């Protein structure tokens, strides 16, 4: 028996030693853990305080990003192909349906978790100084989450997406001043907000490609940027809020 233990131990040059210094080092030296401080306040890690909501948002985002990336491999933002790609995902590609389901479910979970995270931060008054602006960044993240959901809705190019986006972009047409049909409108139907969104006067190929870009590049980029800022500011404000 000893021989196996010896073999196993020989794999690691140094054993796993546990000491306060080692614990600190494991966090500080590791890239994916360096988001965390080496030591955290006891209040901040109570499960009933944060309910892990911020971290879960990261999980859901990473999940949508990974599944979204895989879906991109089988998706063409072309009005003649997009729907056929969906059918392929459902019927031809192994785990295609599962990928699509997981992408959708993670996005739903993200919307829920973002809302609940906001509720948690409000109820614990964590938006107060010095975290005011981080709350504002959080509102930006909320907006990005909603915009990502909205732009993703068009991509399957089925009846559901077409008419949901018709309804959504007609609201843009009704924007005061910069919408063609809104109150006090100054812009025509070929200049207004809706035109920028659609890339034309009706939902067609230019719309699909614009939404595809926004969904896969523009908005995720903005989201990641805001997330980085959000986390950095959590650290700089001294970590999770605690009773004063």
């Amino acid at each position, binding site marked *: 028996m000893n021989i196996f233990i010896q073999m196993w131990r020989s794999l690691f040059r140094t054993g796993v030693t546990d000491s306060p210094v080692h614990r600190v080092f494991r966090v500080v030296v590791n890239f994916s853990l360096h988001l965390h401080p080496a030591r955290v306040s006891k209040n901040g890690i109570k499960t009933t305080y944060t309910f892990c909501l911020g971290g879960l948002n990261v999980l859901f985002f990473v999940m949508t990003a990974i599944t979204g990336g895989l879906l991109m491999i089988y998706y063409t933002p072309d009005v003649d192909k997009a729907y056929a790609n969906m059918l392929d995902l459902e019927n031809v590609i192994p785990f295609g349906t599962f990928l699509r389901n997981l992408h959708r479910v993670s996005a739903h979970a993200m919307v829920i978790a973002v809302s609940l995270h906001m509720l948690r931060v409000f109820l614990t008054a964590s938006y107060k100084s010095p975290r005011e602006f981080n709350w504002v960044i959080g509102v930006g993240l909320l907006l990005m989450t909603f915009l990502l959901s909205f732009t993703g809705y068009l991509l399957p190019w089925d009846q559901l997406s077409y*008419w949901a986006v018709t309804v959504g972009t007609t609201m843009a047409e009704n924007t005061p001043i910069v919408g063609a049909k809104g109150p006090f409108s100054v812009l025509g139907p070929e200049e207004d907000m809706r035109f920028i969104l659609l*890339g034309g006067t009706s939902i067609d190929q230019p719309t699909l490609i614009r939404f595809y870009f926004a969904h896969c590049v523009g908005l995720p980029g903005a989201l990641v940027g805001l997330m980085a800022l959000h986390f950095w500011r959590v650290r700089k404000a001294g970590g999770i809020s605690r009773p004063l």
Partner: protein
Amino acid sequence: MLKPLVDDLSETTVSRRRVLGSALFWASWGIVVVILGVIGGGVLRCLYPRALYEASKIFKVGSPESYKIGSVNLVTGRGVWIVREQEGFYAILAKCTHLGCQPIWYEDQQVFKCPCHGSRFHKDGVNFAGPAPRPLDRLYLSLSSDGRLEVDKGKTASLDYRLKA
């Protein structure tokens, strides 16, 4: 004790320096703003293509005789209704003024109903129930040189517009 680096300069030189420095400072910011403005304007302009590959806004919908008096006809693929009344023709854009869904004509009730939010319109396009804020758009309709009806989706006409034929 540390001495200022420019201790031997007279008052006037310092103030001239300060003025120049501050001018340079604000000029730099000005240039930054101009550059950002140009880039922003360029990006915005880039979102408006010079040509649209869309179906023509002006199209012909057949001869006036092909429409029965009192009938409402959907031109499929164009999203336009051609209505013929005793007094003449008019064209209605098949797009609900609420949120852009396509209403459906119910011949038996003589009413347009929008499936999205239940807006309802009379035969002449005037809204009478549901959330639609205004009547359906009335389009400009004319008789082309070859005697067929011609719709211009780009031009809206007033509610009393009718083409006599």
